[in-house]
């Protein structure tokens, strides 16, 4: 038990597994930074009260580690994408189809983030790509430290595409840089078109917005143009791709985007 942070409470440590592996006890770390526990008592009966200026960014440690990840990806020529969305927008299905359609042409490595279960990792393995599952336990987002550990376990190859499927949540993952090259936010037409206004931090920090399940548009009142307007209001730089993972409509645009983003010189 670490008295200084209380982080050894059950369920606080993420579990990182490949499909088929058993969970086991993990060592105790604090975002890769060790600290000492050398506090000692004073009993000389007078006060030593003093002010210490810290001026430290709370997310600084995560940001530093994210930059290390980014440097590692750059050195290995890996395109790292952070896929974020609310639960049920079709992130895993998008990955499955992408791996099946493009797996011969491009090399994919996947990190799956969920609070619990190996379900998504098993689906990805079935689709044919190397994968590790990060179970965050009570955590609502992936952070740079989890990705750092997962990437080491995954043994990502040079020149590949690393897809990091974040925990389904449009709030918390927005604040945590993982070291990705691009952030891809996915929304589906079964959601409200005002999602970008309701969750502006996520849309503001993303580079590409995929609007999925367009095959359902004839049955819904979803206004595609309005959704884009809202998203652009929050982030004027945001790119869009509309597609249906189910029918395959628009998937070629996504594959073009992947190809040109992975190899900008060949675009």
């Amino acid at each position, binding site marked *: 038990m670490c008295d200084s942070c209380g982080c050894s409470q059950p369920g606080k440590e993420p579990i990182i597994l490949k499909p088929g592996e058993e969970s086991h006890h993990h060592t105790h770390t604090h975002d890769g930074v060790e600290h000492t526990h050398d*506090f000692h008592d004073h009993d000389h009966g007078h006060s030593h009260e003093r002010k210490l200026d810290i001026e430290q960014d709370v997310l600084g440690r995560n940001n530093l580690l994210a930059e290390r990840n980014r440097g590692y990806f750059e050195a290995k020529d890996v395109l790292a994408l952070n896929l974020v969305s609310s639960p049920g927008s079709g992130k895993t299905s998008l990955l499955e189809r992408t791996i099946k359609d493009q797996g011969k042409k491009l090399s994919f490595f996947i990190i799956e983030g969920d609070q619990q279960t190996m379900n998504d990792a098993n689906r990805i393995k079935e689709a044919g790509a190397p994968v590790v599952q990060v179970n965050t336990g009570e955590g609502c987002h992936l952070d740079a430290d989890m990705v750092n550990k997962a990437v080491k376990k995954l043994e990502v190859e040079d020149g590949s595409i690393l897809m990091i499927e974040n925990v389904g949540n449009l709030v918390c993952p927005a604040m945590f840089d993982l070291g990705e090259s691009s952030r891809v936010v996915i929304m589906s037409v079964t959601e409200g078109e005002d999602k970008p206004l309701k969750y502006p931090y996520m849309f503001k920090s993303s580079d590409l917005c995929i609007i999925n399940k367009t095959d359902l548009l004839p049955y819904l009142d979803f206004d595609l143009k309005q959704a884009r307007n809202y998203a652009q209001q929050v982030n004027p730089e945001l790119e869009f791709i509309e597609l249906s993972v189910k029918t395959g409509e628009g998937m070629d645009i996504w594959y073009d985007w992947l190809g040109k983003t992975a190899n900008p010189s060949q675009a």
Partner: protein
Amino acid sequence: MHEFSIAVDIVDIATSTASKESATVVKEIEIEIGQLSGVVMEALEFSLEAAVKGTILENARRNLIIVAGKARCTQCLTEYDTDSLFKSCPECGTCAPDVIQGRELRVKSIIVE
């Protein structure tokens, strides 16, 4: 609720600084939180309450300073107050603000003994 992991990081930053200075008790912690930092103040206060338990910050006064949001219009460069990431410029009406203040999330100082 990302506020809990932020609270744990705040406690970590404070305890490691205190430990370097051989301090045994933190009497006060000063934290700057921007209005546009993406942190819900009530959730952070609640999380800090739990995160300090059993640490040298357990009885520390928590001084949370809120920093107001400020934006600069990317078109006409007017600076204006904002409480959202996408408030239009009051001068030219363009909605393309650069947030220049209010995203702070910083441990400023601690008072130790």
